[in-house]
């Protein structure tokens, strides 16, 4: 089968299965929507964490920003803060379908603007840190963002915010968000595939392998690093906007800036699948999410323990992830072959 035909079958088949999935498993629509959210987490984390080699534990900031921005826009377009408070803290926030979708779209847009601007500012400042220092700094920023949101009355402070009720006339809430997250994941995948195959991908890979060398070759590393983080922020902000409305309730530290769950999961999923590869995060997210759901069903009471064991197993046995393991074992599958007779002398 030629490369093109194989791609058509692969991507076409995946698209068909994905479009049909919520109808085949109607009872699992919410879980399936979350599956795509996990794919988005892993894909967007891998831009900076995998392809560029900057382990970030703070990407969840952009997720939280998108989440808050969307619900704030949905509220402020149609209600004052006082009216919202009188509605039982937003529990009875009713919007028409048109209002709901307008607010959702505009809110996601605003979330993207704020998140990308934040990424640009933060990135310029802290992407000059290397290795562990960067990781610790992002961890701190993630915690700080949660604390900051917990103290700001305009966005509900510590008691969080409630998303508008899902209006009648838009069908199932989980179905709508399933397709939103699926479309966003597909967009992220295609965009990243395109970016990784060009100059951008080469540049951030070079930064991962040896940033000093990249600078010595004249590469404008700061620009590439900041751009990479902004792209991650873009997708996470939209994902956050959708997730806030799907979950229905925003807690500043447990839902929006949830560093200890979403923030860690996005790292684990990318590592499990193989960081620095295009398919790795997707595969890792699917395996991780399915495993996690199974733990909840069959090991209830012990699900957190099982999750912990899974994390240890991932880090110890698959440090390079599934795709990394395959690449080590079968480099020829990844096009790493010696072309002709060895004319350079010396062994491989």
């Amino acid at each position, binding site marked *: 089968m030629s490369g093109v035909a194989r791609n058509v079958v692969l991507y076409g088949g995946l698209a068909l299965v994905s479009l049909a999935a919520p109808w085949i498993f109607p009872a699992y629509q919410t879980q399936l929507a979350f599956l795509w959210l996990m794919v988005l987490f892993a894909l967007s984390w891998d831009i900076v964490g995998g392809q560029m080699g900057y382990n970030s534990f703070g990407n969840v900031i952009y997720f939280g920003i998108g989440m808050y921005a969307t619900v704030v826009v949905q509220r402020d377009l149609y209600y004052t803060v006082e009216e919202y408070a009188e509605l039982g803290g937003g529990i009875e926030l009713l919007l028409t379908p048109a209002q709901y979708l307008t607010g959702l779209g505009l809110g996601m847009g605003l979330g993207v603007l704020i998140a990308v601007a934040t990424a640009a500012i933060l990135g310029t400042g802290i992407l000059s840190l290397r290795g562990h220092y960067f990781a610790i700094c992002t961890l701190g920023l993630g915690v700080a963002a949660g604390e900051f949101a917990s103290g700001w009355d305009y966005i509900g402070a510590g008691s969080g915010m409630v998303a508008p009720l899902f209006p009648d006339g838009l069908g199932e809430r989980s179905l709508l968000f399933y397709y939103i997250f699926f479309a966003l994941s597909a967009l992220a995948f295609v965009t990243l595939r395109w*970016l990784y*195959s*060009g*100059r*951008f991908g*080469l*540049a951030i*890979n*070079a930064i*991962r*392998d*040896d940033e*000093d*060398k*990249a*600078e*010595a*070759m*004249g*590469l*404008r*590393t700061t*620009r*590439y690093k900041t*751009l990479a983080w902004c792209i991650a922020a873009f997708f996470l902000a939209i994902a956050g906007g959708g997730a806030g409305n799907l979950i229905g309730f925003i807690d500043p530290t447990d839902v929006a800036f949830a560093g200890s769950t979403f923030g860690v999961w996005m790292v684990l999923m990318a590592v499990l699948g193989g960081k*620095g590869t295009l398919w790795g995060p997707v595969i890792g997210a699917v395996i991780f999410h399915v495993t996690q759901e199974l733990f909840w069903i069959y090991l209830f009471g012990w699900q957190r323990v099982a999750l912990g064991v899974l994390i240890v197993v991932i880090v110890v046995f698959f440090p390079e992830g599934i795709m990394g393991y395959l690449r080590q074992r079968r*480099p020829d599958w990844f*096009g*790493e*072959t*010696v*072309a*002709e*007779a*060895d*004319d*350079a*002398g*010396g*062994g*491989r």
Partner: protein
Amino acid sequence: MNAILEVTNASKAFGGVIANHDISLSVPEGRIIGLIGPNGSGKTTLFNSIVGYHPIDAGEIRFEGREISNLRVPQIARLGLLRTFQQTRVYTKMTCLQNMEISVSQDREGFADMIARPNPEVVGKAEALLEFVGLFAKRRLRAGDLSFGQQKLLEFAMALMNGPKLLLLDEPTAGINPTLINGLIDRLKRVNADLGITLLVIEHNMRVIMNLAEHIYCLAHGELLAEGSPEAIRDDQRVIDAYLGAH
């Protein structure tokens, strides 16, 4: 002849350790200049100062007449002054061809350039240069899978890909199979003659540097000990004493 690089009275100390003291040297355009000296004599420190890794304490460094001692590493690289590393540095998890593609000159780069598609012209040039250093057959292998000597050759090819005006080579033949060294000397000379790239070479292998350089500077204890033609340096008693540890 015009000097492409002019170092005047450069000094650099790390705390109490004086790595370079009052060093002046001049690299004429289009030539091959050697820089020798015993271990710890300050050769690599001088290289680092020239390419902007650390500021110098005193003196000045001019590249094509422009003061560069206040510029940062990538800015200096984009002017066309490039260096290779003593401890070879390539992008180990990328293929040789990718290593070459990302090494093109970065002199102008807007947003569109940052997300540009692979350019067939660039790929063609990369393949030609890989052929030149004898790595064409391995272009699809990861750079980290190459032997040390081959990585050294790849790093050299990457530097050429960038099209510098002046190339600073830090021990280009260290770790290379002796039978390949003659080929490398030949290639360095061709790069200088055909591509017009000026070379400043640190080298410990006397046979190599005597064959290669037209003019040699010798450092010892952070100071310029001697300079002159290869023959003059070879016969200079001070140089011989420095290498034998007379002081």
